[in-house]
């Protein structure tokens, strides 16, 4: 049941990314060229809604559906945050897609993005192999 719900949320997410034009290579180009507000509006309002709802969850001590307290997962600040962040940014502007849109585009019928998705998985593989040699 839970898996089915998560699948439906994923399907809805793919539809949102598509109909919201988040999967558009042109929209991402426009964002990095600061030529339109669209993507800043999408990301900015997502952050505001996410932040407000997490404040509500904390204020009222909302528990997860299993009854466990909701614990916000911490992101550590490391050298990788900067180096990895820059590399991802470079790739994002080239493919015009961050990870979510890569999945949506693979389903959208642009076969090149299925190749980009496989390449991204390959990138994660190479990272895992060379991880110990990288500054963290």
């Amino acid at each position: 049941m839970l898996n089915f719900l998560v699948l439906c949320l994923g399907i809805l997410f793919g539809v949102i990314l598509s109909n919201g034009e988040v999967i558009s290579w042109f929209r991402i180009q426009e964002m990095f060229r600061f030529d339109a507000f669209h993507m800043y509006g999408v990301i900015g309002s997502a952050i505001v809604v996410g932040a407000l709802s997490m404040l509500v969850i904390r204020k009222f001590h909302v528990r997860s559906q299993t009854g466990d307290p909701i614990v916000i997962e911490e992101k550590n600040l490391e050298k990788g945050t900067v180096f990895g962040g820059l590399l991802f940014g470079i790739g994002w502007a080239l493919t015009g897609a961050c990870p979510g849109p890569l999945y949506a585009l693979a389903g959208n019928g642009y076969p090149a993005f299925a190749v980009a998705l496989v390449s991204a998985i390959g990138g994660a593989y190479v990272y895992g192999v060379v991880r110990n040699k990288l500054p963290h």
Partner: protein
Amino acid sequence: MDTHTVFWPWYITGPLIGLYVPVLYFLVNRHFGISSTFRDICTVTVRPKAQYFQYNWKDHRWRMIFVAGIVIGGFLSRSALSVAAKGVISDHTLSALASLGVRDFESLVPADLFSWGSLLTLRGVLLVVGGGFLVGFGTRYAEGCTSGHSIHGIATFQRASLIATLCFFLGGVFSTYVLLPLILKS
């Protein structure tokens, strides 16, 4: 096609995406994040020996179900991309791209750069294979992407995520103004 009946404005799209942060915490008590599935898929399919892949992926099964859903959602709304870029995308962006040699503005993804045929050209390989590789490598190195850092991380007031997001944009602007012109001319 009337674009206004097809597309949702940012103030619908953004808040809907933002709601995934509390909904996923409530349902699976995990943070909203997508790039971690690249690691899961490696672990499940090729079972690499490296330490990085030694963890119980079954604890994160929900993430793979979620991204499988995204692929299906993309398929269901595949007609969304068939709208011409002109009139939707800023003229300034379109003319800058035209001067770099982009020719196809008939949909929201330039087919001349992202088709099977483009994969036979150097620029296509650099954009698709090179760009994709950096998305996977970079997001795992930074331990997050637009969803995990920029949306979930900033929404929960995490300094690392704010810095990560600034780096995403620095990399993206550098790529747009320096690398893309070089690649499109190759």
